[in-house]
């Protein structure tokens, strides 16, 4: 039985043992979603959006869809993946199951809790009905698949006029309780008017077993609200991630999604911004540093629908060995979206002959009074800069590291949480194998 059949046939059993009564809206959303997945299946390279990313060998695995969860994970097992030097709310999931023991949630001024409780408790019914699967629906078959099996993940509900006092960390761990595991976390984030939230997300495999995570996050940012979302992707070589993140913004809101891809076997980031008002600002930042046969595919979309909005996109990539990268940045400026400012920049450095990057800026502009620009470069390390540094006594290896580090620095500069900035700086230094004798 192939993975698709296995998933479809598991759906009924999943629903029956489920936590929901079968009359709920969510039940009908899921049923519709599994039908869509059954109709479309996994995307193949024939699909234009998946031309450079193949899931073929990945879906051949005999994934366990509902992994055993008997392994106990203590704080000591996970602490290196947590940001401990800042106060934060934490939502920790072990093999897809929420660990209240390891987490630090709140219901005081805002809700930082879990989707399973949001889906079942009457007090959240309205939020769920208003938001759940409203921007993610009818998008792609993998998102549909996640929707069909969505049961757990982060639920973050910030009422209006609330500054969440500390960042929220969402960490998804897998323990390798079975040889091949598929996880499908689902996050829902609603940020009320004038509110502000910062979120850090990470997926981490604690074992050497194979893990495929198919994650979906929906983020709603209301009037004048600010939301910053940081994704740390530094997983093991047996871990693959398909992440789909959808952001819907209301007028005068500011949202950023920052993606740091250093690890993992195959990573696909679908990131889509939808504007639902004027004077919106969107930021999309990313850096990929890949080695060996790693593959990262950043697929972004900014859909400008209203006038006077702006988007800023900056993606950098450093590709070594036989790694492959994809950047597909689509910007749509609809006819009504006059006075749009949309900027996109994508710079790549190829270190070794065996590495590849497929970069595709894609601008569709239907309005006539706009400022849109895109720049895409693919290059190699500057030999004259290397010689310059060497002539000052900096060894070639360090000089290379420093140059690459400097290349990625403007993405790191966008990080608003100082401790996170330090953390990402260190991760970059580690991945570039460079010992920086200073903080940039």
């Amino acid at each position, binding site marked *: 039985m192939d993975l698709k059949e296995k998933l479809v046939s598991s759906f009924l059993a999943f629903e029956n043992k489920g936590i929901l009564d079968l009359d709920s809206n969510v039940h009908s959303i899921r049923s519709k979603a599994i039908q869509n997945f059954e109709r479309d299946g996994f995307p193949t390279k024939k699909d234009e959006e998946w031309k450079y990313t193949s899931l073929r060998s990945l879906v051949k695995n005999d994934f366990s869809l509902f992994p055993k969860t008997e392994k106990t994970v203590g704080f000591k097992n996970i602490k290196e993946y947590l940001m401990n030097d800042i106060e934060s709310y934490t939502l920790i999931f072990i093999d897809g199951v929420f660990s209240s023991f390891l987490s630090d949630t709140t219901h005081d001024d805002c809700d930082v809790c879990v989707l399973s409780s949001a889906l079942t408790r009457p007090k959240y019914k309205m939020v769920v009905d208003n938001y759940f699967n409203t921007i993610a629906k009818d998008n792609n078959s993998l998102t549909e698949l996640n929707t069909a099996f969505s049961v757990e993940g982060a639920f973050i509900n910030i009422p209006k006029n609330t500054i969440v006092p500390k960042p929220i960390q969402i960490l998804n761990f897998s323990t390798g309780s079975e040889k091949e595991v598929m996880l499908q976390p689902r996050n829902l984030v609603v940020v009320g008017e004038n509110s502000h939230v910062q979120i850090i997300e990470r997926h981490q495999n604690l074992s050497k077993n194979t893990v495929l995570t198919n994650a979906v996050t929906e983020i709603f940012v209301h009037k004048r609200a600010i939301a910053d979302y940081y994704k740390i992707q530094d997983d093991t070589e047996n871990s693959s991630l398909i992440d789909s993140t959808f952001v819907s913004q209301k007028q005068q809101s500011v949202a950023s999604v920052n993606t740091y891809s250093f690890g993992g076997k195959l990573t696909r980031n679908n990131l889509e911004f939808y504007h639902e008002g004027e004077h919106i600002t969107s930021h999309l930042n990313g850096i990929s540093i890949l080695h060996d046969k790693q593959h990262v595919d950043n697929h972004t979309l900014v859909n400008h629908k209203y006038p006077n909005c702006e988007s800023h996109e900056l993606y950098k990539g450093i590709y070594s060995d036989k790694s492959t990268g994809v950047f597909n940045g689509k910007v749509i400026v609809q006819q009504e979206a006059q006075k749009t400012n949309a900027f996109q920049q994508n710079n790549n450095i190829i270190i070794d002959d065996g590495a590849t990057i497929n970069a595709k800026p894609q601008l569709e502009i239907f309005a006539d009074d706009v400022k849109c620009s895109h720049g895409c470069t693919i290059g190699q390390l*500057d030999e004259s800069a290397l010689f310059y540094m*060497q002539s*000052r*006594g*900096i060894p070639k290896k360090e000089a290379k590291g*420093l140059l690459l*580090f*400097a290349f990625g620095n403007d993405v790191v500069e966008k990080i608003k949480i100082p401790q996170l900035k330090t953390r990402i700086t260190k991760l970059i230094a580690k991945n570039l194998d460079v010992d920086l*004798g200073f903080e*940039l």
Partner: protein
Amino acid sequence: MLKVKNIHASINDKEILNGINLEVKAGEVHAIMGPNGSGKSTLSAVIAGKEEFEVTEGSVILNGEDLDELAPEERAHKGVFLSFQYPVEIPGVTVTNFIKTAINETRKARGEEELPAKDMLKLIREKADLLEIDRKFLSRSLNEGFSGGEKKRNEIFQMAMLEPKLAILDETDSGLDIDALKIVANGVNKLKSKDNAVIVITHYQRLLDYIVPDFVHVLYNGKIVKSGGKELALELEAKGYDWLK
């Protein structure tokens, strides 16, 4: 200190230096002059170890040690410094961080401890003052958006920090106005001692009014065609290079 023995060097099979001999002793200042394309910058790059150039014959010896097999950074660790004609811009690395890294890598290579942050800062301030460099300048990205004069001043600042045994100044005067030229020359003169040596590469006599050479060499078609005292520079200024060809 430095012995250049019968150096032949080529790039892409085109010979640029064909048999250069030069000896520089500690405490001396040598000027190398010559028309465009005579091989002046190639000579400095070959001494500094740029890999693009293939040394087909001869050798470069510093304090009795053959440099031929050494990488550029290893030559730097032995005390060679090259001030670039066109310093490279490195966005994202500040002047301070760059020089810190250079100093500490050099110390590491020499088996010394890293310089404590406090001492480093003090040294940076001292040398920045010597070259009349604004403190704000130190936190800017290396050479990015610097004016021609700022770039050259920054080169000499790095030289002051690294305290080389042999400094090669490749057209350090180009792009400098007269005030900046004086500051740079003054900096070089203050760093000069009986233990180090300077090679000044220039087109013009102007710089040599401020950094006075003990010897002047004229390079033409990859060879030194004439050597003399500082008066040779004046003669060149008056007559041009044609009479030497």
